């Protein structure tokens, strides 16, 4: 508890003069005993405060108000009593006012709610026995009396018999010989101990084998290590440590790659790699020759429909009911238009109709499986009532609005999808509503899906095989059963299947990828990020972000296994067809990536990129500034939109190199 002292008054007054400089008048000053308050999470603190005039005379008429800047850490009542709630820091803002005066004085008091003394030390990961030669890092938690974990505690580690096992200052235990030792961990006055039994290392040799001796970059090679005892028998469940060294084929490049705890290895560049499996002082080595993947192909530009008056957003290409091929594109920051194109001849992309709705941005466009119904999203409506628009595209040259729908969607529809007579429409970035359009003139909401997480938000939803893949920024990718049946979900009763989030919180798009050859099921989750801002009027933009390849084969335990990142560029929308990945990589244009085989590590470094195309257009909305939004393969061509230059079509002749083998494991 602090006490107010007149002895120190002048000193404090002088010290705090500057802190009240934001006040509108200097008729009085607020003084306190200390502007830094430290209390334990079990205590209380009464702020003692007074106001004095320039002659240091107390002004009792001044009323004080107290506010907590960190209400989750501590609260402060009207009389200045601080009650801590949990460890942390914040400010008490003290406002002093004279009744009837408009001016006020202000003072900030720094409050540090400390942990109570640590009362419990927990070792969370040690096995009862380890083998001589083995090394294990200890994990220790220090908890206070209220069970809050104290971060960065000062820990001291000791071993009672360092001949048996020693422990370093970071808590890494190295077992030396058979025997028992007591490992003690201390933090101040409290400590905990555990007995470690070191067993004789039974491993006399290690055999290391692999499925291949030669591989290409990006190809996952499986190394199996087997431990053998002195009688030549195999020993099960030995936790080998795998590592590798390598020499690149290029003198200006270092050998790099990734190796996992199970011995799976992938090389980024060509060269000679040595894989090492080690345990308890024993090790085995195996050499692998890696050559370049060599999958690069050229892109042939076929057609381009310049859109120069407005930014272009998403696209959808489909075969119309007349057998011709069509495309619809949206617009961004414009007049609420969607453009319809005849793309039957990819060399000639011919605009055939325009739909205009009350919006500034038509961000997303989709067409039903039968090619008859198009849905477009609306954002920036003049009356702030956004929603979606349903269009009859039986004859895309005379596209006809047949219904608008905004119930529950007025906050803006950023993305939509059509799947089996239902529209999946994002609402205000909070959820997606599921709308039945069996009668497209009379759409009816039948279901909704919203995360039950604090501060959740959503950016996109994509449906395949009755599973909705939504992208939820910080909450990552969510798979939801909307008719697949595996979780009993329906459009009116969507059910969660699985989800995965990654630290950056940039999850913007997702696309499923079933690799029948390897048996793997991936979801490719794309980022969107603009750390350098977005140039909407002139000059290029340098976004950031990449694609996260998440292995969902075990739905209960999804794991991120690989990434595709173009240096200096940002990722946006994507599409997978067969084992080819098409990416709208914003400033890096269109990219085509080889997904064949198991995916692991850095796909860009591994040379899996097959082709790229930069859609520069001197007549674009921003001239010569590629900003590729999204691709869609269709009948052997790839169509894509570019934010600055409209619609494009290209052709890529993919000839897979013969030296890529795919193994199911």
């Amino acid at each position: 508890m602090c006490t107010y002292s007149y002895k120190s008054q002048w000193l404090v007054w002088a010290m705090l003069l500057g802190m009240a400089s934001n006040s509108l008048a200097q008729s009085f000053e607020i003084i306190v005993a200390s502007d830094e308050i430290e209390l334990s999470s079990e205590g209380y603190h009464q702020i003692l405060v007074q106001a004095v005039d320039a002659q240091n005379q107390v002004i009792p008429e001044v009323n004080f108000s107290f506010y907590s800047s960190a209400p989750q850490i501590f609260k402060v009542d009207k009389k200045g009593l601080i009650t801590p709630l949990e460890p942390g820091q914040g400010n008490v803002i003290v406002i002093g006012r004279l009744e009837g005066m408009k001016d006020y004085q202000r003072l900030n008091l720094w409050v540090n709610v400390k942990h109570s003394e640590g009362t419990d030390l927990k070792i969370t990961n040690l096995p009862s026995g380890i083998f001589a030669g083995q090394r294990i890092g200890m994990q220790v938690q220090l908890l206070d009396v209220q069970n809050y974990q104290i971060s960065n505690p000062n820990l001291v580690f000791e071993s009672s018999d360092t001949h048996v096992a020693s422990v370093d200052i970071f808590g890494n235990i190295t077992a030396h010989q058979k025997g028992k030792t007591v490992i003690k961990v201390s933090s101040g006055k409290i400590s905990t101990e555990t007995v470690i039994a070191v067993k004789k290392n039974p491993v006399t040799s290690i055999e290391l084998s692999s499925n291949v001796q030669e591989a290409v970059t990006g190809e996952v090679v499986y190394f199996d290590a087997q431990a053998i005892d002195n009688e030549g028998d195999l020993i099960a469940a030995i936790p080998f440590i795998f590592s590798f060294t390598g020499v690149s084929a290029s003198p200006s490049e270092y050998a790099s790659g990734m190796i996992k705890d199970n011995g799976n290895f992938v090389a980024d560049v060509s060269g000679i790699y040595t894989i090492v499996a080690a345990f308890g002082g024993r090790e085995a080595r195996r050499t692998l020759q890696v050559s370049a993947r060599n999958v690069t192909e050229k892109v042939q530009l076929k057609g381009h429909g310049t859109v120069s008056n407005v930014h272009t957003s998403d696209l959808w290409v489909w075969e119309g009911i007349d057998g011709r091929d069509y495309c619809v594109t949206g617009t961004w920051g414009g007049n609420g238009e969607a453009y319809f194109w005849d793309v039957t001849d990819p060399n000639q992309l011919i605009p055939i109709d325009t739909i205009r709705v009350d919006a500034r941005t038509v961000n997303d466009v989709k067409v039903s499986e039968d090619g008859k119904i198009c849905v477009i999203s609306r954002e920036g409506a003049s009356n702030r009532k956004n929603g979606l628009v349903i269009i009859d595209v039986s004859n895309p040259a005379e596209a006809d609005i047949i219904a608008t729908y905004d119930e529950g969607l007025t906050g803006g529809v950023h993305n939509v999808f059509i799947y089996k007579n239902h529209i999946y429409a994002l609402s205000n970035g909070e959820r997606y509503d599921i709308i039945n359009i069996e009668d497209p003139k009379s759409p009816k909401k039948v279901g909704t899906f919203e995360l039950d997480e604090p501060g959740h938000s959503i950016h996109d939803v994509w449906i395949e095989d009755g599973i909705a893949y939504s992208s939820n920024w910080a909450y990552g990718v969510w798979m939801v059963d909307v008719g697949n049946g595996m979780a009993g979900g329906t459009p009116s009763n969507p059910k969660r299947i699985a989800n995965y989030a990654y630290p950056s919180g940039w999850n913007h798009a997702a696309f499923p990828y079933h690799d029948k050859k390897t048996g793997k099921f991936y979801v490719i989750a794309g980022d969107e990020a603009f750390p350098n801002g977005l140039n909407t009027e002139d000059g290029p933009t340098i976004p950031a972000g990449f694609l996260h390849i998440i292995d969902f084969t075990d739905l209960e335990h999804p794991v991120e296994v690989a990434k595709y990142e173009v240096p200096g560029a940002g990722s946006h929308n994507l599409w997978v067809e067969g084992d080819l990945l098409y990416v709208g990589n914003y400033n890096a244009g269109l990219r085509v990536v080889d997904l064949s085989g198991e995916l692991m590590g850095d796909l860009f470094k591994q040379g899996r990129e097959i082709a790229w195309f930069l859609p520069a257009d001197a007549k674009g909305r921003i001239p010569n500034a590629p900003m590729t939004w999204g691709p869609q393969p269709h009948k052997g061509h790839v169509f894509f939109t570019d934010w600055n230059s409209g619609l494009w079509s290209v052709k890529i002749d993919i000839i897979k190199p013969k030296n890529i083998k795919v193994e199911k494991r």
Partner: protein
Amino acid sequence: MIRKSQLLCLFLCVSFIGFSQTYFLYVASESEDEVALIKFDGSQGFVDEVITVGYQATEIEGPHGLTIDPSGDFWYVTMAHGNPFGRVYKYATKSNKLIAFTELGIFPASMQISSANGMLFCVNFNLHGKMEPSTVSVVDPFAMEELMQIQTGAMPHGSRISPDGLKHFSVAMMSGELFEIDVMNMEISRKLNLDRSLASMHKESSDAVDHAAMGHVMNHETSHQDNHHSAIKPTWVSPHPDGQRVFVAANGKDMILEIDLLKWEVTHTFSTGKGPYNIEITADGKTMIVSYKTEGTTAIWNLDQGRELAVIKNSREITHGISVSPDHKYVFVSVEGKGNQRGAVDIISLEKYQLIDVVEVGKQAGGIAFWKVEE
């Protein structure tokens, strides 16, 4: 030899130059994610600088509310759309550079800073959410930290503070309530059901006084949140400089309600044009300016006489916000526009009751705040 008339002319020119004034204000363009600094010299206005705001580059985040710090050193803009929560951003008026931001609730909208404790009060409009009570955020603008959220009604809007800085007023559009927050305690001190209070005012004077029927609800009373859609649909509240009354735009009833703060009830009404939306009252308390959003006009009222003096057609169809120069000479009205049409600031003379200039800004001009006038 210089003639007397020439001297007089020269004197007048020098006088005019000597006393010419420049007015500065900010306006936000909700569908452009930009804020424009506008200067007006008494006859012509122009955009001096455009500041791009927001962080989600390819999404329309919707700058909605604007306010200026009492010191004039900072301006603040609310961004309606976030992930999912909106934000308030703090910029320096000297440089128009971003200083800091903090996250608020869903669709933060109008706001003002109290002169009594320096705190910023911002309504979380939650325009597109469920018909449930939303909140008023209290932000410490020095540290840019949200201190708390005070629950009010459904779709709170029109965040304005009494002249003495001690009371914050907001109205809930959907639940039809007027909320008064004690700025120093940061608690709701009173709320008024406007539909009921208006109905009560219309009753025969012989009716017994029934405070409940008049819509009074003190903060200590338990009352169920009204989830009905208010027929009044209040969109704005503006305290009168005399500190005795507030004026509420009854958007759904095409009228302005005058609420006596002592009686805490509707005491007068003013029939207006279609869709009254925002209200501003000149500092001398004599004139009330109302934007008629639905009909795209701006009205000027004499408050002493309770008379509509003029209705001025705006340059675009959707009239939004109002700001008045402190010398009571000019009204600056933001006008949204539709689709690809640019927004505008209409400058109206309060002396001539005429539109004297139109300054084009980004799409869907909304939030508007007067900064300063310079000689």
